């Protein structure tokens, strides 16, 4: 950080502290909402959902071989395979856009071309494990599922459309040697790796198992009653697997990469929750932004509300996962389910700073069309989801 930026930052904080009318009842209420919302997150979501999800993300980063995925992005890879892999690979390869952009540039200039590159560019930040789990936990499993399915379909369709629109200049790509991360020698079979990941996913599912609605059939309340025993049993299985199958170095790497994600994402998420709480408040509680503004702009399921949500989402920068508390605040203030999904689908993949980098890689025209496709599809997906979910 430059010295001048630091000065500006300090001056900004000073001016805010000086001039904001902290004693005003609305500001007081908003400040309180911010911290109550933070407490809600730490109590409800961190231990049972985020921590297991971080361990899963860490395990994926360390144990899933990137090379095995990246070989599908080479210039000579089969087209259908590279589109399919690109659409789902976000869940394996990327948690933040800092790994996505260089890889995107590589696939675009030297690898499989504009189609798979843009498919990957979209899917990377949109369908990572952390984002989907936290969406499902905070906003409900329907929204989590809609986000995951929507993101995969979007990635595929966006890639195909881009390749179709720009099929002529794909030939201009340079060819040359490409370097993918090394495949490390491994002692475990694919089955062992899958079982190990599956166990962690099951721990996550049972640990964050929601209290079923009153009057539900006997099955769900029974699981809920025994959820801690089930979780503990899976934890024991996990400990056994780790002891039997993994070397000490691998465990250290796993914990290291989990810790890396936590360091990177927790502060951002806490900031995001505080901002969301301050501006929007918890559902049913008033904060800084009056609810009728949100209701007029984003309420219901009109074409306008969905379009506004996707354009706003496309322009705004959301640090990893912060879109979720912000969306929770918006929904609480009266945003419709459809516009919420539109924002989730357009938001994390696009932002103004991100567009500038993409523009420097593939030019203004292609970037504009890429963003246009995503905004239009997000709007349509929002309309469809909104008409089902109400």
């Amino acid at each position, binding site marked *: 950080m430059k010295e001048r930026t630091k000065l500006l930052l300090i001056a900004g904080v000073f001016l805010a502290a000086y001039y904001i009318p902290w004693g005003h009842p609305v500001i007081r209420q908003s400040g309180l909402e911010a911290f109550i919302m933070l407490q809600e997150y730490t109590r409800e979501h961190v231990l049972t959902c985020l921590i297991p999800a971080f361990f899963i993300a860490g395990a994926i980063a360390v144990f899933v071989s990137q090379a095995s995925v990246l070989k599908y992005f080479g210039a000579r890879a089969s087209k259908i395979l590279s589109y399919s892999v690109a659409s789902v690979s976000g869940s394996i390869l990327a948690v933040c856009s800092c790994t996505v952009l260089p*890889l995107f*540039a590589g696939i675009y200039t*030297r690898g499989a071309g504009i189609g798979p590159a843009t498919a990957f560019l979209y899917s990377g930040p949109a369908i990572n494990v952390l984002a989907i789990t936290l969406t499902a936990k905070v906003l409900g499993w329907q929204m989590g599922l809609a986000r995951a399915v929507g993101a995969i379909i979007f990635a595929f369709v966006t890639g195909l459309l881009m390749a179709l629109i720009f099929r002529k200049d794909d030939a201009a790509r340079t060819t040359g*040697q490409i370097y993918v991360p*090394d495949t490390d020698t491994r002692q475990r079979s694919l089955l062992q790796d899958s079982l190990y990941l599956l166990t962690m996913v099951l721990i996550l599912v049972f640990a964050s198992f929601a209290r079923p609605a009153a009057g539900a059939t006997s099955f769900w309340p029974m699981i809920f009653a025994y959820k801690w025993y089930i979780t503990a049993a899976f934890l024991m299985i996990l400990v056994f697997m780790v002891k039997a199958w993994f070397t000490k170095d691998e465990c250290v790497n796993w914990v290291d990469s989990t810790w890396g994600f936590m360091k990177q994402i927790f502060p951002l998420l806490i900031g995001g929750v505080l901002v969301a709480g301050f501006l929007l408040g918890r559902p049913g509680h008033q904060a800084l932004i009056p609810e009728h503004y949100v209701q007029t702009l984003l309420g219901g399921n009109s074409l306008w509300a969905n379009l506004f949500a996707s354009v706003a989402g496309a322009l705004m920068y959301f640090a990893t996962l912060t879109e979720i508390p912000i969306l929770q605040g918006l929904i609480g203030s009266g945003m419709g389910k459809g516009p919420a999904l539109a924002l989730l689908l357009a938001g994390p993949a696009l932002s103004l700073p991100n567009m500038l980098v993409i523009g420097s890689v593939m030019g203004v025209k292609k970037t504009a069309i890429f963003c246009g496709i995503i905004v239009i599809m997000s709007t349509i997906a929002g309309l469809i989801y909104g008409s089902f979910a109400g």
Partner: protein
Amino acid sequence: MEIKVLGPGCTRCQQTEKIVREAVAEVSVEAQIEKITDTMKIAGYGVFGTPAVVIDGEVKSVGKIPSAEEIKAWLKS
């Protein structure tokens, strides 16, 4: 020799640069170390993953933080 550390401003890339600098200081070889953050330049090396380390035009590691021992071995060869 000329060492380039490729990667945008993510923490893993900064860590790699730090380890490279330490290794160079320890082995005490003549080396210019440059951090490359421009996405197109990174792609120009053909690396499919960051952080990456390039020594004298040769790609040495991709998509991981190399250990100090590995870097020293590259510096000596």
